[in-house]
């Protein structure tokens, strides 16, 4: 299971890569593996305000429908349109393909997320 060091993680298997006041958001290798073949991504709308843990999109595999929860509060400033045509990119490279970029409203939320080490231990407990 691939869990890059520099990202922060949620218990719902999203990741966020923080760069100043902006965060790239995606789903983890664990998430894509457990969902199976991803066939549809419903992206958030640009300008949408999201709270930490709030639904911001939907990922569907052949069998399952999963909600994408925002790892941190903020405003959506960019979405990865490419995923609408090629949702399988999330299976192929879950960390190389972000889903949305959020302008963070506060850095406080980030303190509540897991580090790579913590997330690794978290996943180990699930299987």
């Amino acid at each position, binding site marked *: 299971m691939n869990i890059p060091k520099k990202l922060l993680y949620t218990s719902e298997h999203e990741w966020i890569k923080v760069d100043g006041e902006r965060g790239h958001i995606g789903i983890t290798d664990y998430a894509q593996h457990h969902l*199976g073949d991803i066939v*549809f991504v*419903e992206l958030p709308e640009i300008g949408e305000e999201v709270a930490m843990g709030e639904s911001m999109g939907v990922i*569907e*595999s*052949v069998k399952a*429908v999963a909600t994408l929860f925002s790892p941190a509060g903020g405003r959506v400033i960019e979405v990865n349109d490419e995923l609408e045509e090629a949702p399988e990119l999330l299976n192929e490279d879950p960390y190389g393909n972000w889903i949305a970029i959020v302008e963070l409203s506060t850095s406080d939320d980030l303190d509540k997320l897991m580090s790579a080490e913590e997330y690794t231990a978290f996943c180990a407990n699930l299987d």
Partner: protein
Amino acid sequence: MSLKQTPLYPMHLKYNGKIIDFGGWELPVQYEGMGIIKEHNMVREKAGLFDVSHMGEVLVTGDKAEEFVQRLVSNDIKSMQDFQVIYGLMCYPSGGVVDDLLVYRYSNSKYLLVINAANVEKDFAWIQENLIPGVTADNVSDEYAQLALQGPAAQEILQQIVDVDLDSIRFFWFNPEVKISGVECIVSRTGYTGEDGFEVYVRPEDAVFIWEEILHAGGELVSPVGLGARDSLRFEAKLPLYGQEIDQDITPLEAGLGFFAKLNGDDFIGRSALLSQKEEGLKRRLVEFSMIGKGIPRAHYEVQKDGVHIGHVTTGLHAPTFKKPIGLALININYTEPGTRLDIMIRDKAIEAVVEPGIFYKKKTKSK
């Protein structure tokens, strides 16, 4: 209740199946390194091997077996010949469906009924309840493991290890005395994928051996296939699933299965209700639809027209063969004309779809 395992459970572990609880059975939804789409495509292009041992089997014997099965099942049982297989439905007096099933005729005094796993207890109770003197019904589900080998390469693979010419088993016929690598099996040319292929019934203790023999004979042409692709394959071929396209509140006529309910033949349970329904005209019917808006229709999603409820999706998914979402919906008869626009309610949003017959997979089964 603890989960049940089929005799092939060790094979699902060996081939890294992702195990789920399927109606009380521990079965693989897919296999590691493959996944639903690859497994699905394997069956369409080459061949796939399925464990369907969870299916139930009921043996009906006795002088009056033919009369009994004819009364129990909607299709024309009396016209069957020995070693023929027929698809039919067991209905309630209301016309709703108890279950759909395959009937294997050994003789007019011996039939094997193959029923859905989740319905075994209910079906067997129903069969017992309607039993007539001179007929015995036995639930022999635990005496059989069942494998399905499906796909264009199925015959080429199986032919290498059987002692009969498989051309002698025509579509919807069976041979009860086939040896696969020396082991006795029942082999029918039947399946649930829309492809040519076979279903093989073996003693539970022989199941692992037969599984490995088939995979070995098939080599690169075959791989194990889980329940995920079993569902997507049957759905693309528009084969009904109990609990979705049919159930106790949906009649065969509403589900578009009128061909398998012979209303002009011998009497069967539910026939008079179906005759009345036909006379009065259907109030709702199953339709094929494709999406205009973005989204994947799923079972039980509501269907609306101009904000009014008109029915529900029975099955919908991203069809791997067509690489787009398609669906089946049971809707008010007034909206079933081809080209009619519908709204599928996906997460409280109305997403546009259109009634479009003919979009499903054209079956490659050998219908001769």
